């Protein structure tokens, strides 16, 4: 039981990072971006490429499975993925916005972009699964009956730091206020002198950077393969909508709920049905709160 809860929280933390990007695009850009989860994959592969060139550090940090080169990989992956997100926006989504295309046109353009991004990975890196390190890390018993890998603890800590950083940014910086204003009403924000284009660019950059972090963390604790993003697509959207579209905290809570419910579900139902559990919880929550846990009722 304790082990299942710990696992659920750790899986949920990675989902939360990815779900933040989804919820930001839903709230500020106002469309369901199916290609977001491919940014997760790209982030993971950017880090992999960096490690391939920089080499794995001989010295690792204490009980962790990696050293300095991995820190560099996270930073490079974050920047590169943010860049990729901006590139995709410039090539596809901004053009569609300029043409005032319907929301669904953007959604299915993002579906096309997702196919492109995923299979470019297959083309470059091949379909096989890869790992950041060849060495396997052993879980340590942190509580009676609860085993956790040191890497997972670090992932959890970093996730908390990222979320806290994002929280402070949104709450206090000019950019954050502009982003929240644009999420509430783009027109009103524009009237008040917010440059919506800048807000949109930062939304992509932040979403991309966090997606990269999610990808790297996933690769570190599970594995990297071209399908990683695709397998995360549903959990990410479920988490974002469970929390309420546009709500960063909602996305974090949503991610944790998904992680926990999948993990704990094995106690009561056959594992063959495991994937359905988050949706049953989602249905229940939406039945009580049709706009998610933290969604504004106003919009």
């Amino acid at each position, binding site marked *: 039981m304790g*082990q*299942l809860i710990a*696992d659920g929280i750790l*899986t949920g933390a*990675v*989902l939360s990072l990815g779900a933040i990007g989804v919820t930001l695009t839903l709230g500020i850009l106002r469309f369901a971006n199916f290609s977001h989860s491919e940014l997760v994959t790209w982030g993971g592969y950017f880090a992999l490429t960096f490690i391939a060139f920089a080499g794995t550090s001989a010295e690792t940090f204490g009980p962790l499975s990696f050293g300095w080169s991995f820190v560099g990989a996270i930073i490079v992956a974050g920047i590169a993925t943010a860049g990729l997100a901006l590139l995709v926006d410039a090539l596809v989504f901004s053009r569609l916005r300029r043409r005032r295309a319907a929301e669904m046109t953007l959604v299915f353009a993002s579906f096309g972009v997702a196919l492109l991004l995923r*299979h470019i990975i*297959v*083309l*470059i*890196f*091949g*379909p*096989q*699964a890869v*790992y950041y390190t*060849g*060495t*396997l*890390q*052993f*879980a340590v018993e942190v509580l009676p009956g609860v*085993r956790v*890998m040191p890497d997972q603890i670090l992932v959890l800590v970093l996730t908390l730091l990222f979320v806290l950083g994002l929280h402070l940014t949104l709450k206090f910086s000019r950019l954050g206020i502009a982003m929240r204003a644009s999420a509430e009403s783009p027109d009103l924000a524009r009237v008040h002198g917010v440059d919506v284009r800048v807000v949109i660019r930062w939304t992509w950059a932040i979403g991309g950077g966090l997606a990269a972090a999610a990808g790297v963390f*996933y690769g570190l604790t*599970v*594995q990297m*393969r*071209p*399908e990683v993003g*695709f*397998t*995360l697509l549903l*959990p990410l959207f479920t988490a974002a909508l469970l929390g309420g579209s546009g709500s960063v905290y909602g996305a974090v809570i949503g991610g944790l709920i998904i992680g926990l419910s*999948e*993990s*704990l*579900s*094995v*106690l009561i139902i*056959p*594992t*063959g049905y*495991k*994937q359905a559990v988050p949706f049953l919880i989602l249905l229940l929550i939406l039945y009580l709160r049709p706009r998610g846990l933290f969604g504004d009722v106003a919009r």
Partner: protein
Amino acid sequence: MTTRTLALAATVAMAALATGTTGAQAQDCTIPLGAVFPLTGSNGPIGEPIAETARWAVEQMNEAGGVQGCEVEYLLRDTQGQSAVGVDAARNLVDVQGVPALLGAISSGVSLPILTSVTAPSEVVQVSCCSSSPSFTELAESGESGGFFFRTLPTSRAQGVVLGNIASQNYDEVSVIYINTDYGVNLAQEFQDAYEAWGGTVLESVAYNQEQASYRPEVNSALAAEPDALVLIAFPVDGSTILREWISFGGPQEFVLSNALRSDDVLEAVGAQFLDGAIGVDNAQVSGPSVEAFNADYQAAFDADPNRPGIHINYDAAAVTLLAMAAAPEATGPAIRDHIRVVTNPEGEEVYPGVDGFSRALELIEAGEPIRYVGASGPISFDENGDVAGPVLIWTVADGALAEDRVITVDEVNALFGELAQ
């Protein structure tokens, strides 16, 4: 990536040169051979090397002189793991390209609709390396497949029983994690029946669905029962993840593994030192000149050991089909179907994989002599339903590499079946 592309380009260029110089025998006709495999999607990692192997077999046959003096053209399509896409691809190959025979697919969920709606009605031979569903046998028994379906993968029963037998000799209590596809469900069931009949206890049997963010819940529930060992029935990509999680979370490093996990990819991903002593089963692959010749050829051609699921059996699927095409008087489905058993005739002279083997086979066919193809997975003989019964290999991981432990012959497998029946 770039080196790989360059290597490919070089191979193509060399192949072009080679055909240019030996073109004296004027192969100006071509006979198409279709193939449908999942190259993208979740089965892409296993589909890619399998599809490559068949292409290589076709290349070797062409080098050996081709089929009835014609070059065989290998027409490969991606199923993307989707039934509808696979069926469409097969329909296109059969109707538009006019292929008389088709290799594939991998999952039964794709191979079956191709059989029922394309190959059987159009009288085209379909040879699958890897579809394990018992439905194929049923369709053959009821006559619906018209005898056009063959598979080089021994039915899962033999493997499940041998798996249960060796597990019962080593462990009293195990947990099973199996993939929730026809392959995993059947094998897990056969295993459990056999294992329990020989006195073992399955503490926990956990199905997992592919393509999930994490398998830790499955690993946890299998681990919670504190078994002596893990019986894992999975494909390499998910299997590696599950093994890593099992080991990381302190599970006993005692494993009984299914055939698809006999893969260098798994050893590399998990770390061979953790798998030391793991045992598993795989089909046929008796050692012997044909298998060794194949392994050496493969090593030379691909610069890799052929230790990946489906390689040997798909090579044989391609080879048997090509030889039957060569032996058949005309390149039509019914003629090829009728000659599949002719080229695997137990009375015939043995011929082996590779260019030399194919050349010899072609000579014998020319001379009207019977042949017996003994392939990359050993001797092959199809029963009346197009299924093969093969010996079962018990393999192990020793000194950081896959090793062959011993071979359970067909007679021994039948003896085990007999023991179970009592």
